[in-house]
């Protein structure tokens, strides 16, 4: 299968197979005007199978959301058709505006202009807690 190579843009690589659509929706790629290619179930020596997303525009990415959904993805920044930067994405320490607190007693439940902020409290088990009320995400 051939996908055109991109000139100026980003490639999100090493996505866990099956996660590409989730990233596409949660990071709002459906709203982009440029070309976006989702390549599913690509053979990978390291991962067996992986997904890849290619975006034909140098857009800012929400790395917190990306790291939360799929820590371990890599981001390749392409300029003039050449790879100029490669970034690894880890599980973020804080999440701004990615999750919503479900605790009805939390201050964010009645003051909706407050930014939703979650902090990583248990990396091993991927536990995030609301910064305000400490409820588990």
């Amino acid at each position, binding site marked *: 299968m051939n996908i055109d190579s991109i000139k100026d843009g980003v490639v999100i690589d090493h996505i866990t197979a099956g996660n590409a659509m989730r990233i596409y929706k949660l990071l709002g790629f459906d709203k982009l005007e440029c070309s976006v290619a989702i390549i599913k179930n690509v053979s990978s020596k390291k991962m067996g199978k992986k997904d890849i997303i290619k975006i034909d525009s140098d857009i800012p990415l929400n790395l917190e959301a990306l790291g939360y959904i799929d820590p371990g993805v890599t981001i390749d920044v392409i300029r003039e058709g050449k790879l100029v930067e490669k970034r690894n994405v880890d599980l973020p320490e804080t999440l701004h505006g990615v999750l919503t607190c479900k605790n009805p007693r939390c*201050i964010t439940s009645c003051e909706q202009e407050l930014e939703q902020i979650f902090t990583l*409290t248990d990396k091993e088990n991927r536990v995030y807690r609301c*910064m305000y009320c400490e409820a588990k995400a």
Partner: protein
Amino acid sequence: MRSVINILDLSVEEIDALIATANDIIANPKKYSEVCHGKKLATLFFEPSTRTRLSFEAAMYELGGHVLGFSDAGSSSATKGESVADTTKMVNCYADIIAMRHPKEGAPLVASMNSKIPVINAGDGGHNHPTQTLTDLLTISRKKGKLSDFTIGFCGDLKFGRTVHSLITALARYTGIKIVLISPDELKLPSYIKKDVLVKQGIEYVQTDNLEEVLPELDVLYMTRVQKERFLSEEEYIRLRDSYILTAEKLKIAKEDLIILHPLPRVNEISVDVDDDPRACYFEQALNGKFIRMALIMELLGLKAE
């Protein structure tokens, strides 16, 4: 500006210093009677409270300061839809320090993020109540002469009791603490506190549903109220409520130097015949609440006695 929202906002050394100041206030109250002269405490109580509000107000008056504020949300601009952030910014114009109680968890943190003056969390929903924990620590320290090497039993509602969660979190930073968790299955300490606090800090703990069985080994017994609103059926509530009533009769098997604490208010979990027992310290605990709040207000305002 420094605020106290969670007991963990204070280091062990800072807590020890506050306890030392509170002890000095108890010994020499006159020395502190003008420390906060010209300073104003704003008590912003968005839900009713008796003990905590009166304790904060008495603390400020005894330091020679003034108090302004409101004691329920109905008499504040919150009824007009004002945000916690805006209320805080407004109060910054009139006061030097804020004590805030709010039914929504995290509201005092929001206040501290929007404040140039110190904010003390005076209780936010079922979340934090750091000055109650400081009160408990001062009482244990005064009665036992130390905050290490003792066995403390927590009895009653360990699932929803914020005072229990906070005190366990605070005590986990001291050495030689053994914790006995006494509750029915339905009201056990949440597993995340066991995992995040007790296991992580290597604190020795046991769980039981039988108070009498463990009573003889306790140095401190922290009783809590079993709250009716947590239960779906009335019978279940009554069964559980009555299973942990501390009576003078039961106390016969307890240590001579046991201390009995309760954050109050009580319903029937401590029989009134226990009140005259020298081991009953819950009213003294309430008095200590005023002294530790005096120490905290001074500390946050950067004031010292001459």
